[in-house]
């Protein structure tokens, strides 16, 4: 039985003025299965929503098309409306007749608007309901690490009522306490005793994770502590494994002999210098101290912070002559500019050099020499102590943990956060968080923000002991799955594993809470066993079939909802016009578009096909845009083999805030099509 479809059009308070709505309504009413059509001027406002709800109820509408503004804006609002009206919220399809139609083109766009509505109708006819289900989750949290960040996090989690295990591989807590105490005045031992005494925190030292299985809400972790093996379940795992430093001094030929410059006595690390400062029984106070930083590793704030703090402290304590050799002083964290000024005012001498200074040793002193950029002259300082440059590296064990947990590291081998601005404390796997220095940033304020952020995240996630997830949004049909393992290997979020059905057969099981609904698995499945509700082949094809009589003269663009789709919306908002012949299909990720979809679009007569995704290196699903690129290339090979006329697919990368690039790409494609005379 055909479902009753209701179409709700909106002219956005009369702002959409280049669509003949009367004509549109007339045409839409004639489409099969459409039993109700309504034009509003304010669908998203209370009044409009109330009206929608009563219409749905009164007219027994089973599926809804909303033709209005961009779904990026209001899709969730309209889903709620459906729910309130008693329908499953996923029986909704939207037609973007504002940003991507009315605002994007000159002149009357009624025909395109009607086509967009038809696309949405074709799609909504096929949509399946998606239910939400409650999943129990463990309220226990695992925090890996033993320094300030880990301890603070555990304490805060305890305060919000979550039980935590603090897992540290060393024998004692309090890594890198010297610096924290020196720079920030923290009382590390007080912190340690607090956390050890906290009834919500289990402290496991000399212990390491050896195995992790499961997904968010239900991680099964195996911990080895000496001879003992401990098994635990956690709802979330937080990595706070910190960093380590290494002296950056190159070997010969800078140092004449090892004896002449002795590491640890004349040449020290920042941490060692901190100890010296706090050592009340220091033999001789150094009269001349040299610092050097920012030559080998320009990437972190730590050296600047440490140098300024230590230089000032030394000046105040010993009154020594202090020379700081640097390439650039990065003062972009809170309080740093002030610190720098204070240091200069105290008489610390700053020497700027473009090249790493030469270091030599002789008769118990270390000489550091460099050309001052401002003076244009060589400066040579003989120091009693040189605080050498350090490389700022990921904490020991980062690599091991990253492969144990199957999460990525960045180009410097620190854990890779999902997005430095928007999702700084999440990894690409749900339920696994990264905070503090282990994700490559050092600055107390940022660390404190990370801690608050993750506590909020984890509390929001686990506090109720259950989470609401969409059930089977993406599912591998056990009847069709051949357990080829492709999706398991390919999922960028490690959300798929082999599961047993009917007690025996092994098939791919997509974890509802861990899935990001990107569609990469669905596209790649060689047996077409994976159904991604809302983006199944039939749902995509139905939209393509609705375009024009036979798609002739239409260019199809698959636009990723993280990049090109909002860029297209923005082009509309800015009234940057592009050819009306473009039909946009919204996809969750460029990686959800398969060769099959592109071929089908051509088969149905599309004159050009564009696949638009995020910039390289910025795909939200990591490999989606690269896969899309490879598939587009392969598709073009198939088209060439088939001797198809010049029609080809093309892939472009852009950011969501690049409306001009979007328009340029579309214009160029359109031009090519026109020139080829199709």
């Amino acid at each position, binding site marked *: 039985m055909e479902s009753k479809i209701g179409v709700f059009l909106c002219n956005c308070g009369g702002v959409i003025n280049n669509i003949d709505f009367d004509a549109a309504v007339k045409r839409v009413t004639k489409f099969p299965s459409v039993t109700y059509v309504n034009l509003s001027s304010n669908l998203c406002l209370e009044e409009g929503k109330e009206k929608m709800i009563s219409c749905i109820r009164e007219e027994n509408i089973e599926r809804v098309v909303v033709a209005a503004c961009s779904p990026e804006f209001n899709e969730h609002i309209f889903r709620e409306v459906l729910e309130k009206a008693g329908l499953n919220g996923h029986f909704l399809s939207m037609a973007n007749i504002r940003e991507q139609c009315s605002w994007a083109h000159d002149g009357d766009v009624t025909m395109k608007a009607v086509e967009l509505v038809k696309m949405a109708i074709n799609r909504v006819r096929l949509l399946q309901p998606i239910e939400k289900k409650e999943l129990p989750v463990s309220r226990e949290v695992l925090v890996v690490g033993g320094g300030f960040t880990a301890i603070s996090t555990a304490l805060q989690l305890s305060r919000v009522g979550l039980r935590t295990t603090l897992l540290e591989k060393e024998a004692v807590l309090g890594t890198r306490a010297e610096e924290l105490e020196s720079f920030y005045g923290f009382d590390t031992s007080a912190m340690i005793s607090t956390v050890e005494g906290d009834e919500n925190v289990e402290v496991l030292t000399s212990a390491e994770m050896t195995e992790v299985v499961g997904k968010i809400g239900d991680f099964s972790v195996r911990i080895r502590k000496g001879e003992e093996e401990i098994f635990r379940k956690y709802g979330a795992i937080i990595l706070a494994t910190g960093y380590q430093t290494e002296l950056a001094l190159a070997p010969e030929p800078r140092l004449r002999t090892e004896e002449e410059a002795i590491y640890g006595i004349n040449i020290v690390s920042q941490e060692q210098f901190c100890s010296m400062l706090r050592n009340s029984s220091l033999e001789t106070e150094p009269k001349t101290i040299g610092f050097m930083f920012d030559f080998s590793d320009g990437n972190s704030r730590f050296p600047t912070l440490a140098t300024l703090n230590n230089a000032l402290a030394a000046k105040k304590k010993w009154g020594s002559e202090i020379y700081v050799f640097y390439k650039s002083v990065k003062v972009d964290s809170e309080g740093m500019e002030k610190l720098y000024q204070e240091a200069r005012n105290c008489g610390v001498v700053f020497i700027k050099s473009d090249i790493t200074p030469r270091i030599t040793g002789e008769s118990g002193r270390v000489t550091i020499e460099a050309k001052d950029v401002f003076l244009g002259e060589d400066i040579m300082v003989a120091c009693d102590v040189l605080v050498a440059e350090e490389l700022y590296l990921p904490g020991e064990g980062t690599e091991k943990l990253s492969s144990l947990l199957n999460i990525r590291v960045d180009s410097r081998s620190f854990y890779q956060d999902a997005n430095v601005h928007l999702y700084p404390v999440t990894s690409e796997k749900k339920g696994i968080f990264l905070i503090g220095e282990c994700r490559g940033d050092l600055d107390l304020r940022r660390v404190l923000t990370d801690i608050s952020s993750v506590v909020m995240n984890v509390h929001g996630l686990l506090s109720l002991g259950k989470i609401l997830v969409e059930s089977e949004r993406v599912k591998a049909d056990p009847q069709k799955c*051949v357990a080829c393992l492709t999706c398991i*290997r390919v999922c960028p979020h490690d959300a798929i594993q082999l599961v047993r059905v009917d007690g025996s057969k092994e098939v791919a099981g997509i974890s509802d809470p861990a899935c990001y609904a990107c569609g990469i698995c669905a596209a790649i*499945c*060689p047996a077409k066993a994976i159904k991604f509700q809302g983006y199944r082949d039939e749902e995509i094809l139905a939209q393509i079939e609705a375009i024009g009589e036979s798609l002739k003269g239409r260019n199809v663009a698959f636009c990723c909802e993280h990049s090109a789709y909002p860029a297209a919306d923005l082009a509309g908002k800015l009234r940057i016009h592009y050819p009306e012949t473009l039909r946009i299909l919204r996809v969750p990720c460029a990686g959800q578009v*398969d*060769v*099959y979809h592109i*071929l089908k679009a051509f088969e149905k007569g599309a004159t050009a096909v564009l696949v638009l995704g995020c910039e390289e290196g910025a795909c939200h699903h990591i490999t989606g845009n690269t896969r899309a690129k490879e598939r587009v290339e392969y598709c073009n090979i198939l088209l060439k083999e088939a001797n198809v006329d010049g029609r080809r697919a093309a892939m472009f990368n852009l950011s969501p805030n690049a409306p001009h690039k979007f328009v340029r790409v579309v214009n160029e494609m359109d031009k090519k099509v026109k020139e080829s005379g199709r």
Partner: protein
Amino acid sequence: MIIAERKPIAEIKQLIAPYKKVLVAGCGTCVTVCWAGGEKEVAMLASQLRLARNAEGSEISVLETTVERQCEREMVAEIKDKVAEVEAVLSLACGSGVQTMAEMFEDKPVLPAVNTTFIGMPEKEGLWVEMCGACGDCFLDRTGGICPIVRCAKGLLNGPCGGTRRGGKCEIDPEKDCAWVLIYRRLEKQGRLDLMRNYYPPKNYRAVKRPGKVQAVKA
């Protein structure tokens, strides 16, 4: 797993040149796993063929189906109605599947659309490598679980040959490891190098008399 590779489209087009209505039949077992002939590949090939014929200005009707296992008569029988509608069948199954289909539908040309290549496994995403030569006389126990019959380019039983390239690569293919170097390392790890020091007499190449037959013990 039997590994196959799709034939070049030019060859496939040639095979179906005389026909105006064909069925593209995939197989849901081995060729699905190695991305050569599953439901997705069927759909893509069908699309490509339609586009190709269109480009030539001629018509073709392409039906699509996938049999769970094309080397089973009962499963193949399930698609007989579709086969009846067409002039020829393009099978994406391995040679075993193609021949079963050909036997079941004797009146229709059943054409192979893939080349069956070897028994293998996935070394990494999208890359399958040959592992087993189906020689019928398995002696993997003596070579640390590495088969020299197929993984050594010359199939030696007392290898390596004198042509190993620097770094232990094969004389023929510099990207490929010399199987006997791999065998040496594996046996060394297990402390069983004595197995490699044994002399192995010439192989019984007639262990499987072709065409092979295996009669399982009746249940």
